[in-house]
């Protein structure tokens, strides 16, 4: 019997990676277009999205495996922990919250919903047959390359924003860039 090339779990992994890439790309759009620098907790939330993304690209490159989904769940739980922490920081009545809003919700609230959705999506994907998830087609490669470029962009952006130490609580300038210019002549 010929194996079918179409896999619902494979499609689900690609769509989940598309969602991760979209979220990280929108975060960059907000950073560069609106000039809003990410706070330390926002950076940790980006990192949690990156952890989920790595779990998804492992499924796409190597095939579905419980260990990959495990890392994805761990990334989702860590992301929920950080974003919930930030929600609780601004939960008092009268608190304007931190940063811009999107469709009347702050980004950290959207991030919480995103982590919740990605955990649920991975739980469903884990229940589906795992054949056909490994995918080296051009669309899958494009998504993986897009994701790698986003992670690389985050390395550079965070280095320029924070330098090699901790970031400012409410960053308004690229302190790391000034630090690098002073110490390395960059």
């Amino acid at each position, binding site marked *: 019997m010929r194996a079918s090339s179409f896999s619902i779990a494979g499609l689900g992994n690609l769509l989940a990676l598309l969602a991760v890439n979209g979220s990280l790309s929108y975060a960059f759009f907000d950073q560069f277009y609106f000039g809003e620098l990410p706070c*330390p*907790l926002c*950076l*940790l939330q980006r*990192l*949690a999205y*990156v*952890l989920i*993304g*790595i779990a998804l*690209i*492992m499924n796409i*490159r*190597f095939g579905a495996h419980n*260990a990959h989904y495990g*890392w994805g769940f*761990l*990334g989702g739980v*860590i992301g929920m*922990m*950080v974003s919930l*922490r930030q929600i609780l*920081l601004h939960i008092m009545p009268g608190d304007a919250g931190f940063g811009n809003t999107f469709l009347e919700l702050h980004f950290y609230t959207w991030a919480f919903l995103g982590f919740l959705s990605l955990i649920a999506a991975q739980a469903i994907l884990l229940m589906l047959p795992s054949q056909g998830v490994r995918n080296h087609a051009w669309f899958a490669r494009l998504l*993986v390359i897009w*994701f*790698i470029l986003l*992670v*690389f962009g*985050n*390395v550079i952006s*965070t*280095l320029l924003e*924070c*330098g*090699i*130490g*901790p*970031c400012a*609580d409410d960053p308004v300038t690229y302190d*790391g860039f000034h630090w690098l210019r002073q110490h390395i002549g960059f």
Partner: protein
Amino acid sequence: MFLPFLTALIATLCVWYERRLLAFGFLGLTVLILLVWFRFHATTHLNISL
């Protein structure tokens, strides 16, 4: 705070070049650094009682 992004980038490159176990190692390192930074920001740095 750029260090966990750097280890995550190395993990993604390990995945691209199909070095699965090495990718797991860097992924674990990323999680550890992330948790240290989270603890720093959630306790000492922001000085908010949990």
